[in-house]
């Protein structure tokens, strides 16, 4: 009875939050809420590495600023939230 079930994940039609990897989730989240694709005051795109963007996100959400995609950060990204971007260009 303790044999683990072989789970099969399927793509549900019209499921907007699709099964995606944590890296994919983070990339989409950082973009949607304004942490990447940031413009400088000059209008030029700011050099925003994923690590820098993650630090910014972690600071905004009051998490440890590790700059890496740790579990706490992924969990935070999966929380229900307001759609207004945190960082505004």
């Amino acid at each position, binding site marked *: 009875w303790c044999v683990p079930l072989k789970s099969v994940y399927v793509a549900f*039609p019209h*499921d*907007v939050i699709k099964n995606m990897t944590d890296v994919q989730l983070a990339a989409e989240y950082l973009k949607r809420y304004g942490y990447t694709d940031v413009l400088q005051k000059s209008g030029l795109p700011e050099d925003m590495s994923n690590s820098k963007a993650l630090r910014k996100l972690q600071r905004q*959400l009051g998490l440890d600023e590790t700059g890496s995609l740790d579990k706490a950060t992924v969990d935070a990204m999966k929380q*229900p*939230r*307001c759609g207004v971007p945190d960082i505004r260009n």
Partner: protein
Amino acid sequence: YQTFTGDLKWDSKDVSYRVVNYSPDMDASVIDDAFARAFKVWSDVTPLKFTRLFDGTADIMISFGVGDHGDPYPFDGKDGLLAHAYPPGKGIQGDAHFDDDEYWTLGTGPAIKTYYGNAEGALCHFPFLFEGKSYSSCTTEGRTDDLPWCATTKDYDKDKIFGFCPSELLFTFGGNSDGAPCSFPFVFLGVKYDKCTTEGRNDGYRWCATTGNFDTDKKYGFCPNRDTAVIGGNSAGDPCQFPFTFLGNQYSACTSEGRDDGRLWCATTSNYDTDKKWGFCPDKGYSLFLVAAHEFGHALGLDHSNIKDALMYPMYKYIKDFSLNRDDIDGIQYLYGSNTGPNPTPPEPQFTTSSSILPTKPTPSEKTTTVHVDPSQDVCQINEFDTITEIQKELHFFKDGHYWKNSKKGEREGPFLTSKKWPALPKVINTAFEDQQTQKIYFFAGKQFWVYTGTEVLGPRKIEKLGLPSSLDKVEGATQRGKGKVLLFNGENFWRLDLKAQTIDKGYPQFTDAVFGGVPPDSHDVFLYKGSFYFCRENFYWRMNAKRQVDRVGYVRYDLLKC
């Protein structure tokens, strides 16, 4: 806290809002109340006043939508993104949008308001016992008409208190059928439908015809969600179909199989593998009140805070006893200032009366010294009257020991000292009405009331003597209905007073919103004028006609006082 770049804010302290449409998840009155409470969160700590409009363009237009709902920021299905709002400004600015792929509740599971039955509109109590069996959702057990029902106490067998749950068999909302129930089967574009459908729409909302043929009659309404309906997926609003087949296996309950996020789902047909119809199973849902309060913060000019306990923190968290964080208060008061300072008080009228008020006719020997009322006291500057009532066909406005009246000629007269005409009354009265049969005038203040017949007065007497509960702190509104019956209001409840018997009729209190839908739940004055009910909140009134339709929201000072 953060404000939007440039400190975007409303220029006026009077901000209007309009609820453009409703979610099928909750009754319209519950949604209206959640929004009103969400605005109150902000008006409690600022000088802001919020007024609801029923048509036209308001500063804050509130709507529910799914996916791509007409702005550049589509919603994302159930969970994830819940809502968004725009900072103050014209057009779409200031508007608030709520994702209707969420399950909107009051945050603790289904908030099912009942209809008919004997529960007077109370919410379902889950779980409840019926014939010894426990039910955690509305049921059709015990009925032959398929109408889902629930108990509103924990034990139906003992209490026998019940109401019907929202279903398309009971009513529809929106559309053009005044809430009529669905008519099944109905014909749409030549095809027969025996349940609500999303056909013909691209927004996923379920609808039905309210006559047998939509093609000829064009009568329709939207279907309320049953409490057992799935959320999101591609069958929102349909019930789970148990058992269902998924990857060849049969399931008789919601499952998380097939998903890596652990969320429970079910199929809405008997075979997912062939039909691919599914949705998420109902959960606790999101508190519309909390999310709305957050979004209205944006609509007023606040951006996200990084304080975890602040309302303006971007993540949702259910809080039972909500109060604003200091950070939120600092933010909104930075934009609009506070309302915590002392309110301006009118000069005290200097007069003396007997301190013991007896139920007797005042004698000429009683010394009542009055001074002139300051004529500069501007009635048009008064934001909230203690009471408004019609006496001898003249509308009277009472405030802090003074009153004004609109004469039969339509001219405004006053201020007069209340003590001069009705010396037994305290300075502040909460409501008054004139018995149209006897011309007796009833005044209520706190837990007491007085009855004037000409210059003779009876009182003060305790309102308990009328059969009102001893816990009631005051009567805030009164309207005479028919001969010898008066409705007495206090917030969410009202009672019917039999003037002849001088007692409250059986079956009361009733819920104000169950009978008078669409008026503010916190009206501080209710009165009858020219055949319409008026519900007042501060300087605004909601006028309800005899058909119980709110046909106007207006200003007391402009429309009634003719300022």
